[in-house]
């Protein structure tokens, strides 16, 4: 008897070791347990939808529609609770990884539950609005899963073992060197350098962050202006041009970093506000059904 338990424990630690070695993320958590569960859930919904004959036709108001709608609404509330759960440090309840895994896969199954709840009757009304918001939230979440799976590698490659502040510090160092190196330059040549120094490396709106394109970059402008200039002493200018080039490289690294981070984060700015919009629209949808019963 004791040997059975020991063996089981051994096996458990063995599994644990394998897991640690392979870094089991939330996607492959517990051997895709939640992927299987939600896949089965979606399949059950699709098959039962086809098999169950409701009168007069499938829509949200049939008993089947009510069932799916109730499941879907509760699921939405539970999925939203991830935002609460992740802020709450626990050791005894579900691990956050398990919770996230379930969040992702059950959220995907909501595509089937929600859409089949509609009975494919869509229109320009609050009911379809709730559905559309739900789909937007799910799609943004799907985007989030994809970028979480792919972009950290690019982020790490770009970082080249530097921390964020080290990247910024590099720019600051070049700025200091530029400042002293540019002292001998003529006022005409100083202006672009000054503009480069005056440039906030974090400037640029959401568009620049996402695209990583900064067409009015003062450092690039200073580089081209000084390369074409003949005003100051050539040695001083050469030195400044060299520094500008290095600053530009450092800026490019920082901006690539910002871009990847923006791509990693942007979906949450859709996912979270739209979730709340969805919950509001869902409340309106449910209340409206019973209001005009």
């Amino acid at each position, binding site marked *: 008897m004791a040997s059975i338990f020991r063996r089981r424990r051994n096996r458990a630690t063995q599994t644990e070791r394998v897991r640690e070695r392979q870094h089991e993320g939330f996607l492959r958590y517990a051997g895709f347990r939640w992927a299987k569960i939600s896949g089965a859930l979606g399949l059950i919904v699709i098959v039962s939808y086809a098999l169950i*004959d409701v*009168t*007069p*036709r499938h*829509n*949200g*108001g*049939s*008993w089947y529609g*009510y069932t799916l709608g109730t499941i879907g609404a509760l699921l939405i509330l539970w999925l939203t609770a991830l935002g609460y759960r992740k802020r709450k440090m626990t050791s005894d309840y579900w691990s956050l990884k398990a919770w996230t895994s379930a969040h992702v896969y059950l959220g995907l199954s909501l595509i089937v539950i929600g859409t089949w709840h509609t009975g494919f*009757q869509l*229109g320009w*009304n*609050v*009911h379809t*609005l709730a559905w559309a918001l739900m789909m937007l939230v799910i799609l943004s979440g799907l985007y989030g899963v994809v970028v979480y799976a792919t972009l950290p590698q690019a982020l790490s490659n770009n970082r080249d073992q530097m921390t*964020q502040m080290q990247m*910024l510090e590099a*720019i*600051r160092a070049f*700025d*200091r060197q*530029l400042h*002293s190196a*540019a*002292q001998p*330059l003529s*006022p005409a040549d100083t202006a672009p350098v*000054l503009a480069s*120094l*005056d*440039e*906030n*490396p*974090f400037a*640029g*709106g*959401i568009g620049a*962050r996402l695209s990583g394109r900064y067409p009015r970059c003062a450092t690039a402008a200073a580089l081209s202006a000084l390369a074409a200039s003949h005003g100051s002493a050539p040695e001083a200018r050469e030195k400044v041009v060299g520094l500008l080039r290095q600053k530009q490289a450092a800026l490019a690294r920082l901006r690539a*970093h*910002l871009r990847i*981070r923006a791509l990693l*984060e*942007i979906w949450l*700015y859709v996912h*979270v*506000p*739209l979730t*709340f*919009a969805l919950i*509001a*629209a869902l*409340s*309106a949808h449910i*209340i*409206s059904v*019973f*209001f*005009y*019963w």
Partner: protein
Amino acid sequence: MSFILRRIATTKTGKQIIRDQPLPGDTITLGRDSANTIHVADLAVNPHHATIGSGDGRTVRVTAQEGLGFDLNGRTETVADIDSAAGAELRFGGHRLTIAREDDKIILLVERIDELSQASKDVDEVKAFSLQSVLFGKRVGAWTFAALMLLAFLIGPIWAWHSYRGVDERPNGFHADSAWLSGPLSSAHANLKNDCQSCHVDAFVAVTDNACVNCHTGEHKAMSMAHAGAPTAMLLAARHPPGLGEKVLAGFAEAFNKPAGRCVDCHTEHEGAGPMAATPQKFCADCHDGMAGRLKSAGHPTMLADAADFGTSHPELRPLVRPAAGAKPVRAMPGKPWRDYNGLKFPHDLHLQATGGVARMAASFRGRYDFGKKLECENCHRPDADGVRIKPVEMERDCAMCHSLAFETVGGVTRTLRHGEPDQVVADLTAYYRSTPPARPLQLGGMARRRPGQYAEGQVYNIYFREVAARPSRAADAVRAVFSEGGACYDCHTIFPPAAGNNWRVMAVNQTPRFLTKGWFDHDAHRETACADCHVTATESKASTDLLVPALRQCRDCHVGEGGARIVKVETATESPCAMCHEYHSDGGKPWQPKRERKRQLSSITHQPSRAIYDVSLITGKRERGLYDVSWRTPSLQGARQGG
């Protein structure tokens, strides 16, 4: 007059170390160039930016040299006179020059106040590197969106409902609760699109029948006669035991105050624009499937047979029949051959033969009537005005083309025995003999074989055949001959000889106008189909007591259940819900059907049965045919040319 340049250094512990350095000369130069008295290593400062001098040792004059000015009290100046006692702060690029006066000395304090570069400024790492710095916070978005949604789609609609409470009809225009419309209304109710309250009167109260009968004051006021007459307990017992799903639905309905049995249970709305959908078969089958057993066990035995689906589970048709001559019509019992005694003698097989006397005779009338090479059903059976049913056969219209009752021509006028009035017949014949003995024998045989092409309706043709071999010479004989076997009346009618003071009598003919009283059959909807495709026993029927109404089997050749269910092979299936034939409200009329479905049924008939045996045979319907005004030139295809 001396200027002192003061420098302040701050130690790590925050202690300030002040160093004063007297500056030589009366005029101080300030700039980036190291040759200046005050050297400011600031790229925003010109190499020779400004001069500072003082004439009287009190007022300090600052003059900008190379175009770039300096800031004084927020304004850019190129020259400024400053009272050193009052002091001032001037700004050169990223540096601040403070002028003050201590012990008759003018103190110049130069400090860097701006960061060397923007990048050098302190940043909040968490914020700067994330999107927080360029986007609204998620919380702001979340609450804003949620509030907008609630405002537009919850508070707005409720407000719209609230502001029109008790108002009969809402004005046109936008009403916020139209956002709650779960689907387009049917075309009949389309004008109520903006007036949700016309049906949804009270909040959280399901649509009541009151809302319906406010407008539908007439025919739909109640449930059908058949169903309204039944006790409630019986109706409840008829319902099939609820399945899991229906229990769920019933639970919902009960929990949220949605009573069952309302008009809208069957007449569902918001199912899409266009005509309201026909009530689906499930609503009937819910009770009628297995109902007999349930009713019996509940103590309400019924004669009604179970019906669930036309294609698979529908009781045999039970047309109205008269089980004996002169009996009252009753619905035929299932399982027995149908016998309907209508009082006539009529062998359909003889009349529909492709060869033989009848066919020859019919062929001889081609051109006069719309006969073909033989008789067709529609030559004698005429649809009524709306095409739904077939009119009862009328002797003058439908038989007399061949079965003439003419017996004499006087001066070009043909005299005919009065059909339907046996006493008149007796009188006419008696009168005929009383005047003058007939010059020629009378033609009194109803079915005497006539020479093709020479005899037609309205013509007297005096020849002697078997039927008139006993040539009557007296009136009584003539009367007896016409009422006896071989006589004109006897051949088609059941004759009662004179007895107990009665004269010759003809049994009353009862033609049932509608055999299927519980269901609706529309001949017009089936005009693309040949009669014989359904009335299959017509060509073999030897007696008029054979009821030729098709059985369920014939219907199922084309008609399948609503969902396509069938038990026989069907080439072109017409999906048939209960409402195609049965009218729930039992007003005896045509079951209501959406227009698109009516159209669909006709267009779906693509594989017509072969009609090779019918050259031209369309039911003409409306065309009345005069008995005596036909001409030899009447084209035989007249009906077809009129379009049927």
